[in-house]
């Protein structure tokens, strides 16, 4: 026997919630899985023993019998008599409790049943997510629509008290009558990794110019940290972070051409929203995946690969014989830059924070590796180049390395600052750059990738480099959706090498 228990807080008075739930025949008006319901034999809806006969959206039919109903305890129990799924011996109860501190409602939905062993996990997941969690979200939406009379968010003081279902989350949610839902990581306010909270949010059908994607793998990137902390304003709380994923198209808007249900796709672009099981988005920047590119590699490598492509070809066109300095060389983009710059004929000097990472970068083909925690890397670069310095420095570390990168440059060298993992680089007097005629670039991913015309060449170049073995993407470190905060912690503490992905 398995037991399932899910609970939530609904930001509405208990009597309003109970009025919805005590109607044993009313679930077809709020639950997204149910198309139509009727009570057999014309029994009263609140007669214990009555049977509801209902049809599911997917066509299946079920019958359930009311076993107990208590207005005193605000509890009802029911059992399944017939169902299209083997939920053997299924008995469920719903109960509500008042949250007096804020006038909200605690709702618990639990059940016991005997699934066939080989379908146990699948059925538990279905009951947990598609019935209970989806039901929570649907009732929340129903009450919100009623209370506001419009789709405008209404923030009440108690929304701040009840931490779970505040009205602000509902704004992310669907506004359609038959709302489906998806699990997603929601950032309710800018802050640390703990602000990455797993939630069930509404997901409307795709708009005419959108497709709906079921993600298989989601890429975790440092830009997601900047979105979470508010350093970049690409994410407005409450919002779902993430700009990179791979998956399968599940629905196509009426105005979309060129994509079909079942297509394997990946993307690495705004708007944010990738940390979710499903999402809707415009298809302009979607990339079709061929059979030889796995979802995992696409999610792990697309954003980093496209970044490496424009950093090495557009921001600075690396030429054979150039000295290229690459910081954080064992990181996600760093590993690609090392392999690709070497392939382009450059002499690669890589910096890393530990001996372990040094070995990784050496295996990738770096000509020289500097452990910068042990050695002044600017002096080391000058020594390795006989005082000439680096022609170009790729620096996403920021505060800790910026000054050293400037010192390590050759005359007419080019410093490309494309991140600040250790903090902002601060203010600099550009007059002093004349001492070596230095060029500084501060590229923004979007400006190199925000149209199909700009993005296309980088995609083609990246996939070609993968196929030819010019670059290899190591097996990414995997997390599940609920571990998104752990992924960010690992990324921020520089505990990682290579790419991080969330397996959905």
């Amino acid at each position, binding site marked *: 026997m398995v037991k399932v*228990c*899910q*609970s*939530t*807080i609904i930001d509405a008075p208990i009597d309003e919630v109970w009025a919805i739930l005590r109607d044993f025949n009313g679930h077809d008006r709020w639950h997204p899985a149910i198309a139509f319901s009727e009570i057999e034999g014309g029994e009263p809806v609140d007669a214990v023993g009555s049977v509801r006969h209902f049809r599911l959206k997917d066509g299946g039919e079920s019958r359930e019998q009311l076993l107990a109903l208590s207005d005193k305890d605000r509890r009802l129990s029911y059992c399944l008599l017939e169902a299209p799924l083997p939920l053997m011996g299924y008995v469920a109860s719903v109960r509500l*409790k*008042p*949250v*007096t*501190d*804020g006038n*909200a409602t*605690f709702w*618990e939905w639990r059940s016991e049943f005997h699934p066939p062993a080989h379908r146990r996990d699948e059925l538990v997941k279905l009951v947990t997510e598609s019935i209970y*969690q989806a039901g*929570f979200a649907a009732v929340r939406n129903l009450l919100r629509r009623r209370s506001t009379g419009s789709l405008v968010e209404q923030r009440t003081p108690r929304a701040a*008290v*009840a*931490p*779970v*279902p505040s009205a602000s989350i509902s704004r992310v949610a669907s506004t359609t009558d038959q709302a489906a839902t998806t699990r997603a990581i929601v950032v309710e306010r800018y802050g640390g990794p703990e602000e990455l*909270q797993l*939630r*069930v949010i509404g997901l409307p059908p795709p708009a005419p110019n959108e497709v709906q994607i079921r993600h298989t793998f989601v890429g975790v990137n440092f830009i997601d940290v900047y979105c979470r902390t508010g350093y970049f304003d690409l994410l407005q709380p409450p919002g779902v972070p993430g700009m990179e994923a791979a998956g399968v198209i599940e629905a196509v808007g009426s105005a979309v051409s060129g994509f079909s249900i079942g297509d394997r796709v990946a993307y690495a672009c705004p708007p944010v929203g990738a940390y979710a099981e499903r999402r809707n988005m415009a298809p302009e920047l979607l990339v079709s995946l061929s059979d030889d590119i796995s979802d995992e590699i696409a999610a792990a490598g697309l954003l980093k690969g496209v970044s490496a492509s424009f950093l090495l070809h557009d921001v600075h066109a690396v030429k054979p014989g150039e000295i290229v300095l690459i910081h954080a060389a064992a990181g996600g983009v760093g590993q690609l830059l090392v392999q690709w710059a070497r392939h382009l004929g450059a002499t690669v000097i890589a910096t890393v924070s530990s001996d372990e990472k040094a070995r990784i970068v050496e295996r990738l083909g770096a000509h020289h590796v500097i452990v910068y925690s042990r050695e002044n890397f600017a002096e080391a670069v000058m020594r390795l180049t006989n005082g000439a310095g680096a022609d170009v420095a790729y620096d996403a570390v920021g505060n800790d390395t910026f000054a050293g990168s400037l010192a390590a440059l050759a005359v007419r060298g080019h410093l490309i600052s494309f991140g600040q993992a250790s903090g902002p680089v601060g203010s600099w007097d550009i007059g002093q750059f004349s001492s070596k005629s230095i060029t500084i670039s501060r590229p923004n991913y979007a400006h190199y990738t925000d149209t199909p015309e700009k993005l296309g060449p980088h995609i083609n170049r990246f996939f070609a480099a993968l196929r030819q073995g010019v670059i290899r993407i190591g097996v990414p470190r995997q997390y599940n959706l609920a571990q998104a905060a752990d992924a960010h912690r690992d990324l921020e503490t520089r505990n990682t090498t290579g790419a991080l992905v969330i397996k959905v």
Partner: protein
Amino acid sequence: MTKVYVSSVIPAPAAEVWKLVRNFNGLPGWAPFVAESRIEHNAQADQIGCIRNFTLKDGGRIRERLLALSDYDLSCSYAILESPMAVENYVATLSLTPITDGNVTLAEWQAEFDCEPDREAALVQQIGDSVFQTALTGLKHRFGR
């Protein structure tokens, strides 16, 4: 018989909240109006029947007997033996329920007691707001909200 019921959402997993709440001698750690507490006769704080003897910051003293403690149900019941509140047959239960959505906790605190009819409204207000809700708010603050 008069009843009081108060509940709050505590922004932490139930197991974490229970670590604090289960300590029958632990009120000074989270209830803002409690100055100090001890368990009489050197009994253990989780021994059913033990008596906590605690002093309020306003000087009042209360003795309460532990009637039930369940690590399975996450609940704790106790009776008042002595207090400045002039209540009789006072039995209260503090219980926790996990909220799976967000991994937080519903804390419920309820009491039943007898008292003089003309003092009922004031006692309900005092116990419900000044004691239970104030303590639950203190509990919330312990977990950062």
